[in-house]
């Protein structure tokens, strides 16, 4: 491939890599060969016949999007014969395409229009037919108008490679049409709504509904920024007209965005956005001025500090904020308020992984890149809801599988990823650590590990062997996975010459399974690029790096490290506390020592376990200030609400799952006050001025503290230790009163605490408004439950009523509830695991009963 060859295009000698097509070679040279079905990044079919060129020595015209270059080839792209063929093709297409360019959204960027113009076709000689297809506007995101479709097939091809593979042609000849299974609307055929089809459509057959009549292409401003949903934090372009977002696109047409990234931005312009601060007066939140609000907060916080000491104050920041905001927040908490009680979403979503990485490798920066997933030979996927949580990782897995990489999936649910796997280990819920240890044990027994690495780099192999031997007892019975399957998995993982990556969900992993994953890395020496924890929030990595954890300073330095503390004290000009503070979970629970709490962007009422306890703890605080863009369930409990801004209004950076620092650029003017300015002003009012001109200045300070953010690298350990702990079950044991295990997790469209997605059109795509209990068909049958039945779900913490959704991917005994649904955490337990100080229990025991139907239910 890398060999260079020389050919002649349009009389010009060009040297290009061997193996590429003529059209690619032409593009290389700056020669544009017209094309409609060809699309860079997709397999070409040669169907539109527009890219025909003349090849010296060939009798017939050749299709340049398929024909590979050859040394000495002579290509002519604009001969009379070629132009005639092209005119003919475009004229034919125009004979079947309504010429409604006047008000067409694609006017100006329509590829058909472009070629009609370039080829000088003023009018087709044929009568233009009206195809009469109804325009599909039945879903909130994508408009499908097949009257405009030119059947290039790009949408079909991209849906295969990065969508849910639900498109194909139907019928033939003149009545050929792009369709879905049984020609049903997208929302009924498991469409991912990634919108990739919209992005590649050369005409206006597929459109973002949001953009209709809201701006011509040439009026749109494109701001490059990054997505603020999951940890992939994909690059995107926010298209605005006069300060309003019209749509979101990508640099290259085939760049992937998921439904949330492409369509989930509309919450930014939702009417419920907070623009003015509010103070609680007589039990009611009433609007006030910024000065009033900030003075009040400063006064109250100071008073609590003076009365109860700095450690009676706490702060929690959400990891969907920029590094700059998070960094400043922790500086405010530590230097101005004087407490290490500063924590973030990291605690509940990824703490065990972060802590383990720092402990074993000396750095949180262990993940491989997304591109490396695609290139891997074998992928081990622990928790396979990845295409819900981090859809782009799901796409990379699919691409790898297409390249014939081997997939091994470990999950009790038979998810989409599980279905395409070579080996699917359907284990009993909550037994991941046992299974992974079983695999490690098998590798030891079969000698499938890197002896050299272990002997030269690891210190405690003997101890580890002993641990595994003890752990390995009864693996088959405990996990429900056969010995043979475990051995197979061990052999897949143990293939030393293969690039193997373990992909896992830090959110769903307890500390023991993270230990087990790291031990596998050490056993095979895959300490670099061997693991990918997919972060459920865009800046979880950044939040940890910035020191938004009560035991870590910026740069992931432990707070009891006095060298770092002294350095920080110098820069901050304040004395810093030297003991780890409380974790977010510890701050919000009964008997907490916190009196005043500052919550930035988090919504614990929904996102923290045991809602009843959470609400009780929040309402019993002396003072609660919540900074957010909406009046969330948590903000409603606050004494003061400070309106911040969304990612579209922000500048700064995120650090994504890969550890890449993504630049966030402001696309629209802030609707309220930038969060970093609020913190800085508050700090000033409390006598600790934080003077920054801009976000860049904050980043400059970060760079001085964390070398990796200024082009340097993280300090890494060179010697490692296997990491062991036997802490028993991470799930509540089901019993006769609570016989089912409840798993909560991400869904396709909604997100995290739901505060943003519930105010976006994408949430309309969730079944039952995203509030349901997924249950295996047989469990449902034995309980007399059918799809949509109202059921009462209860645990020792509380109970809720919800619709049942039959879900074949769930095993018997395991039920599922979307994590963004505010009811799910009513059932969960907030028991704290003492070493990580995050939740101990991933799966809660619940009881389910069908509610008596009241009267006849009529179907309208």
């Amino acid at each position, binding site marked *: 491939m890398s060999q260079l060859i020389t050919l002649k295009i349009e009389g010009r000698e060009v040297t290009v890599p061997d193996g590429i097509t003529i059209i690619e070679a032409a593009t290389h040279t700056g020669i544009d060969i017209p094309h409609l079905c060809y699309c860079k990044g997709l397999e070409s*079919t*040669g*169907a*539109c*016949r*527009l890219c*025909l060129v003349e090849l010296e020595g060939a009798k*017939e*015209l050749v*299709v340049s999007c*398929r024909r590979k270059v050859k040394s000495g080839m002579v290509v002519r792209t604009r001969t009379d*014969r070629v132009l*005639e*063929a092209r005119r*003919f*093709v475009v004229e*034919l*297409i125009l*004979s*079947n395409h309504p010429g409604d360019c006047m008000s067409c959204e694609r006017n100006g960027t329509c590829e058909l229009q472009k070629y009609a113009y370039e080829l000088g076709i003023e009018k087709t*000689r*044929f009568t233009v037919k009206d195809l009469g297809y109804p325009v599909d506007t039945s879903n909130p995101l994508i408009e499908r108008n097949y009257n405009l479709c*030119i*059947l290039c*097939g790009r949408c079909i091809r991209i849906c295969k490679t990065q969508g849910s593979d639900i498109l*194909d*042609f139907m*019928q*033939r*000849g*003149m*009545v*050929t049409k792009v369709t879905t299974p049984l020609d049903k609307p997208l929302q009924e055929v498991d469409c991912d709504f990634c919108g990739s089809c919209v992005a590649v459509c050369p005409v206006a057959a597929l459109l973002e509904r949001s953009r209709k009549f809201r701006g011509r292409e040439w009026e749109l401003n494109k701001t490059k920024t990054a997505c603020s949903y999951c940890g992939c934090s994909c690059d995107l372009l926010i298209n605005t007209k006069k300060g309003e977002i019209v749509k979101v696109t990508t640099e290259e047409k085939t760049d992937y965005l998921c439904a949330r990234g492409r369509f989930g931005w509309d919450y930014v312009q939702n009417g419920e956005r907070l623009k003015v601060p509010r103070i609680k007066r007589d039990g009611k939140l009433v609007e006030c001025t910024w000065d009033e609000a900030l003075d009040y907060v400063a006064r109250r916080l100071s008073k609590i500090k003076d009365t109860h000491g700095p450690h009676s104050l706490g702060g929690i920041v959400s990891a969907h904020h920029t590094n700059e905001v998070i960094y400043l927040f922790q500086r405010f908490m530590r230097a101005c308020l004087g407490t290490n009680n500063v924590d973030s979403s990291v605690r509940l979503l990824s703490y065990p992984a972060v802590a383990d990485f720092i402990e074993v490798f000396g750095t949180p920066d262990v993940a491989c890149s997304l591109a490396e997933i695609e290139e891997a030979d074998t992928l081990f996927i622990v928790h396979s809801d990845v295409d819900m949580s981090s859809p782009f990782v799901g796409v990379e897995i699919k691409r790898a599988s297409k390249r014939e990489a081997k997939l091994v999936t470990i999950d009790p649910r038979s998810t989409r990823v599980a279905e395409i796997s070579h080996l699917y280990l359907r284990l009993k819920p909550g037994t991941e650590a046992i299974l992974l240890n079983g695999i490690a044990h098998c590798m030891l027994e079969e000698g499938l590990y890197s002896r050299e690495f272990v002997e030269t780099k690891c210190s405690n192999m003997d101890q580890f062997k002993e641990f595994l031997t003890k752990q390995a007892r009864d693996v088959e019975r405990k996990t429900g996975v056969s010995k043979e399957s475990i051995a197979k998995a061990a052999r897949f993982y143990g293939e030393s010459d293969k690039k193997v990556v373990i992909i896992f969900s830090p959110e769903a992993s307890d500390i023991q399974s993270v230990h087990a994953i790291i031990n596998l890395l050490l056993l095979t020496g895959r300490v670099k690029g061997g693991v990918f924890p997919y972060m459920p929030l865009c800046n979880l990595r950044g939040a940890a790096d910035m020191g938004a954890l009560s035991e870590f300073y910026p740069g992931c330095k432990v707070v009891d490290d006095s060298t770092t503390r002294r350095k920080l004290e110098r820069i901050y000009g304040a004395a810093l506390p030297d003991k780890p503070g409380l974790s977010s979970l510890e701050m919000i629970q009964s008997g907490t020592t916190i009196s005043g709490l500052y919550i930035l962007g988090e919504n614990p009422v929904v996102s923290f376990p045991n809602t009843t306890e959470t609400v009780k703890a929040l309402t019993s605080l002396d003072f609660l200030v919540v900074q957010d863009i909406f009046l969330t369930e948590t903000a409603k409990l606050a004494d003061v609400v400070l309106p911040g801004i969304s990612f579209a209004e922000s500048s700064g950076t995120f650090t994504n799952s890969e550890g890449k620092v993504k630049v966030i650029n402001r696309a629209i003017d802030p609707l309220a006050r930038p969060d970093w300015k609020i913190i800085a002003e508050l700090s000033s009012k409390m006598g600790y001025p934080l003077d920054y001109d801009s976000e860049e200045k904050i980043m400059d300070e970060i760079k001085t503290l964390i070398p990796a953010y200024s082009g340097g690298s993280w300090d890494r350990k060179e010697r490692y230790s296997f990491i062991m702990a036997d802490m028993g079950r991470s799930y509540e044991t089901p019993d006769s009163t609570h016989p089912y295990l409840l798993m909560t997790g991400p869904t396709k469209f909604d997100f995290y605490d739901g505060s943003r997605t519930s105010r976006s059109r994408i949430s309309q795509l969730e079944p039952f408004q995203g509030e349901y209990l997924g249950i295996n068909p047989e469990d449902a049958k034995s309980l007399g439950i059918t799809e949509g039945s109202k059921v009462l779900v209860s645990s020792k913490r509380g109970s809720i009523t919800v619709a049942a959704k039959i879900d074949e991917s769930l095993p018997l005994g395991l039920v599922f509830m979307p994590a963004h649904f505010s009811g799910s955490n009513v059932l969960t337990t907030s028991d704290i695991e003492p070493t990580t100080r995050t939740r101990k229990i991933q799966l809660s025991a619940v009881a389910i009963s069908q509610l008596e139907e009241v009267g006849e239910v009529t179907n309208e």
Partner: protein
Amino acid sequence: MMGENAAPKIVVGLGSCGIAAGAREVLAAFERELKRQGVRAKLGRTGCLGLCYREVLADVITKSQGRISYGNVTPVMVPRIVEQHIINDKPVEEWIVLGDGYTTPDTDFLTRQYRIVLRNCGRIDPEAIEEYVARDGYKALQKVLAEISPEDVISIIKESGLRGRGGAGFPTGLKWEFTRKAKGDKKYIICNADEGDPGAFMDRSVLEGDPHSVLEGVLIAGYAVGAQEGFIYVRAEYPLAVKRLKVALEQAKSHGFLGNNILGTPFNFNIKIKEGAGAFVCGEETALIASIEGRRGMPRLRPPFPATSGLWGKPTCINNVETFANIAWIISNGAGKYSAIGTEKSKGTKVFALTGRIKRSGLVEVPMGITLREIIFDIGGGIKDDGKFKAVQLGGPSGGCLSADLLDIPIDYETITQTGAIMGSGGMVVADERTCMVDLAKFFLSFTQNESCGECVPCRLGTKRMLEILIRLTQGKGEEEDLYLLRNLARDVKVASLCGLGQTAPNPVLTTLEYFKEEYEAHVRERRCYAGVCTDLTVFVIKDNLCKGCGICVKHCPVEAIVGKRKEIYHIDESKCIKCGLCMEHCPFDAIYRA
């Protein structure tokens, strides 16, 4: 065929054609009659002999008379045949179409043929492997497995000069060699039996009449290219062919010609039947492969050719039924004997389905190099009702229409291609003066337009726009510039289409425009269809001087378009006339004519 058993044997032609003509009833009548008259005779069946115009065919085989074929047999004729021929040993001479020592008008039909592919059709029971074996069936396979290396098999096929009979005429041996040399852990053989051309039935007749010859060809190909699995992709619209193939597969398996360790050698080969769902485009090899794989039957661009990347991406050799049916003969008789037949570049024989306005329609196998005139006039007996020859359509909807001045060209791939037609799979439709060439072009184009898969623009939209013009022309709404546009469109569709379907779809239009230009011009300039086919351009007129006022035409007119009184001269009201022509047909005085 007589065997040691002296009992006479009656064999009825039970191909689809025979069955359609009533062969089952004839067979039943023989059974009844034999029982009634208490005659001991064996009843058997065979495939199609090719004399379509003589169906139902029934052969009587006796020791004294040999094999005698009766044509146009109906159940009514059966008692006499049984009594006279079988009981009294006196053949019913006036019904004989073929028989030793008898010269009939039908003799020419067979004597001018050279039957390699059709060697067993109409001669053996297609559902009895013993009869195939008795005529040296599977000998070639035995020979190949025992004595000839795969490379040498390929050399023999190359030497024979056999070219693909699916239409394009690619040298078969070369295709096998490419497949053999292609890298792949698995290789496949596909037999393309998706015969879809209207008017073509060569493959069906072979599958129905001699399925084992095809299987033997596939097996030898498999051995030669190094494949272990074969598919026969056959139209589901050929239920009898499918059934006989299934029977043949079972029999071949039980006789050790198919499966593992064939004939005790290490050669393993299995064949699966895949029924097509009726899309014409699936006759195109890449679309056919997609269809077998369970995908939508759409062609893809070549290269890569199936020989390097075919079924499931593996090297695949794909040939059609007729090609495979030649193989065993070539192996048994030698490449030299095969290549001695035909012209310099086109060797061997070709089977044609001769239909249309011809006296003796049917299936003929002729040596390459024979002229169209010989086929149509000598074998086919000339034009029906002694009409005048106008054109012959070669190669089905992808082929072209040739005029009388091309009747003496020799039939070989290159010459036919030069005329603008193609050899195609072998459809040969004869037209006389009563055929309108514009209408004929419209017929073929409406077929291809309807069968276009819709993938590439030129074929999907171009054929439709061409058809629209042809429809306008036949309606008398065509303009001078339509002819220009039609020709340009046709050329562009040919140049720019993705697969063979689109690249050849304009051929009927281009050739009729070339050879029958004046007919198009008459449709535009004079608004007339001389053949009287395009009803919009036809007027029925009653000649005043011939009309006797009998009123018979009035009775037959379905739309009361004829006005006037009895004993007076009638007139046709053009506004009501639907141009059915019933009046003209029934006028006893020939007073009505088409203008």
